[in-house]
């Protein structure tokens, strides 16, 4: 029992369960899944689908944070990906064709990859502090997206492209399949190869890793490029959901949600040891929070406050220092009893 209690995902999972429980109490049937036209519907499926963009972004963020870095530009990258893809479709002759949709995806992801390389170059090659280096793209990126969309909210109709967000495959939402599929691939890549260990080594002690022959520059560069690529994918799902490229609001504050998900999942912002399964739980908590807020009928005015309280509770319960303090209090009390 104590072992379960001490598992680092214990408290995040308790929080997730509590949120779902709160929903069930209010609406007992909420966790039910119905089948309609061979597609699955219901709140759990919604959570899976709605969590897709955040999961992709948080996945990249986890790897960046493991190397002692941070990427603030993911939100801007989300906006750019959407703007590029939709502008590409809008300016093509056959907006509804599959080829155009594929072209849009490739062009958008390609640009995002280049932007990630830019971040990686600033951090790995020029040694600029990650928070500063990515702040550049965070602020400039939305400007770039504005330029691409000409300041308008570009709206297009392309059935193949919108499948990314609203389509179903084998009864499941395409967005969820993409995000969770990519998550699985990256998780396997990281843990089945030596990538995870080397990233952790770089995050824990960069100089020792360099002297041990680890190509830390290449690794750091790669995670920023990968993070931007994943954010671009998230941006495509966002854009496909609304079919409108909003340079100002697409992916707004998603960097904060992603950092939050990583931290809730037990990865330290100081870098080093990282935990992808924790990040997944963090993403699910944040997505479920939105659902809970709606179901409980909490006023939009206090939604942020409610979210903050949940996050504070989870992070406090996970804080080893708080636990040591509590343990210390207990010990002190015992000590006082003994000496009295």
């Amino acid at each position, binding site marked *: 029992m104590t072992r379960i209690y001490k598992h680092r995902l214990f408290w995040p999972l308790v929080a997730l369960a509590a949120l779902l429980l709160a929903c069930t109490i209010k609406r007992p049937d909420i966790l039910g899944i119905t089948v309609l036209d061979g597609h699955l519907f219901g709140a759990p499926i919604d959570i899976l689908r709605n969590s897709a963009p955040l999961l992709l972004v948080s996945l990249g963020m986890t790897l960046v944070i493991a190397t002692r870095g941070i990427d603030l530009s993911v939100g801007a990258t989300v906006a750019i990906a959407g703007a590029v893809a939709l502008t590409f479709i809008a300016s093509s002759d056959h907006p509804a064709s599959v080829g155009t949709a594929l072209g849009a995806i490739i062009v958008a992801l390609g640009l995002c990859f280049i932007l990630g390389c830019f971040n990686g170059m600033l951090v790995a090659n020029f040694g600029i502090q990650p928070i500063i280096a990515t702040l550049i793209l965070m602020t400039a990126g939305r400007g770039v997206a504005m330029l691409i969309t000409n300041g308008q909210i570009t709206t297009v109709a392309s059935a193949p492209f919108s499948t990314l967000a609203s389509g179903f495959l084998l009864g499941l939402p395409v967005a969820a399949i993409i995000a969770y599929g990519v998550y699985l691939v990256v998780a396997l890549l990281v843990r089945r190869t030596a990538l995870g260990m080397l990233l952790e080594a770089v995050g824990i*002690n960069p100089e020792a890793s360099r*002297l041990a022959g680890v190509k830390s520059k290449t690794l750091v560069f790669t995670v920023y490029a990968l993070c931007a690529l994943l954010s671009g994918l998230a941006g495509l799902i966002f854009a496909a959901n609304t079919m409108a490229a909003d340079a100002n609001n697409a992916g707004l504050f998603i960097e904060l949600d992603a950092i939050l998900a990583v931290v809730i999942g037990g990865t330290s912002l100081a870098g080093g040891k990282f935990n992808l399964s924790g990040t997944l739980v963090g993403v699910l908590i944040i997505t479920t929070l939105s659902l809970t807020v709606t179901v409980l009928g909490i006023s939009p005015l206090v939604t942020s406050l409610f979210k903050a309280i949940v996050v504070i509770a989870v992070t406090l319960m996970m804080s080893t220092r708080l636990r040591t303090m509590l343990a210390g209090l207990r010990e002190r009390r015992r000590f006082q009893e003994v000496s009295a």
Partner: protein
Amino acid sequence: MIASEPQQRPSTADAPEPQATHPVVQMTGISVEFPGVKALDNVDFRLFPGEIHALMGENGAGKSTLIKALTGVNSLSGGSITVNGTSTRFNGPADAREHGISTVYQEVNLCTNLTVAENIMLGNEPRRFGGLDWRSMRRQATVFLKRMGLNIDPGSSLGSHSLAVQQLVAISRAMVVDAKVLILDEPTSSLDTDEVQQLFTVMRQLRQDGVAILFVSHFLDQIYAVSDRITILRNGKLVQERFTRELPQRELVSLMIAGTSDAQVGQAVARNTKEARAENAQPLLQAVGLGRKGAVQPFNLDLYAGEVIGMAGLLGSGRTELARLLYGADKADEGIIQLGGAKTKLRTPRQALGHKIAYTSEDRKGEGVVGDLSVAENIILGLQAARGWTRPLPATKASQIVDAYIKALGVRPANPNALLKNLSGGNQQKVLLARWLATAPKLLILDEPTRGIDIGAKTEIMNLVSELAEQGMSVVFISAELEEVLRLSDRIVVMRDHAKVAELPRTPDVDVPRLIEIIATGEETK
């Protein structure tokens, strides 16, 4: 009393009482446990005002743990601590410091990006009008620096000074609070002879003032030069507490090392110099006019397979800088490196690793240990880096390698899953050696591999170096201890003021005084 009878607890009752009758610190029956390790087992320790008390023991004996138990870094699983007659338990070094117990740790733990004055006064800054009184801060810091005999600008950044100066600043910092107890955990490991004398002067002055000093050092001469009493630990247990003047050096060492007969003590095998190498032998590595501005003046050096090259020189003489050029840790401005006769670029550690060159840094904590990774991961790190991340070492092969090295080098605890940061300094050093040996290097550069570790581990590492050279490895061995260099090397390179000043084969007439002469004057008197 020898601790071959573990049931019978060695007592401090028979030990002679020093002048002061009441100990300022009394620790009774202290036990500390880490996951899987019993670091301290029922240890008694006491410290009297106005004495210098040496704490002795091998790696993993529990010296650092005892200090951390006292200052509240580690929580106790048993025992009690009395300070000034009051039962106490501290919450951490800061708490202990407020109660007059200041600690200077083995590895300098200061903020290198702050100024000297800020580092000294940190936590005790003079204030004025609600802000910091910078002028008074510098003035006060200067007083403390003067007391250490240091004449440096308190406004300069700490990082711009050598490790030795940083260490002295750390000690000045400990003296800012009016400490009743000063704990010095290996303060001398990065100091040169003059600086050590300077420190001893300060320590004796403090003893006169009634301060109790707990002193940890691996240099026996220093222990005998300065300490009044000695407490010896072994494997987390108390062995004895004795007056220094009544404990012969040989007996002390035999108390520290279990199962070692007197004859073996401190006598690492002196290597037989290699037979003259074949006339046409091709050097493994040739450095021609290799140099880097501000670090090492251009030098020539030939390294041969099966040879140990010793590097002698003072701290900051350029011996580390030279080694770093050979490994590509720093880039050379000029000159070339030839490997097996072919000109080769060594611009990164990764390239050097690819050419089967390995290097352990003198800065074990900063440039060697990856603390939050396990022992196993630390051992395979070099090998894995050489393979690249796409080709992970198969799990069975990895554990074979790891187990083999843990056994061969006697890493304790022999647990591949323990986090490296929880091991003692000497065992961390063994793990780092294992990391490099696992890559099967042809050239192994060891920068002060024996620094800050005990005699037993030193002997083991030196014997290992001899063996490796026998097997045909080329070894560069850097050490501040000339005895070690003399004992191991086939040739000795002497560094002085960032330049290579001499290279001599080890012949019977090369001895410590002669090396000192060259280091001091830069030339031989012949």
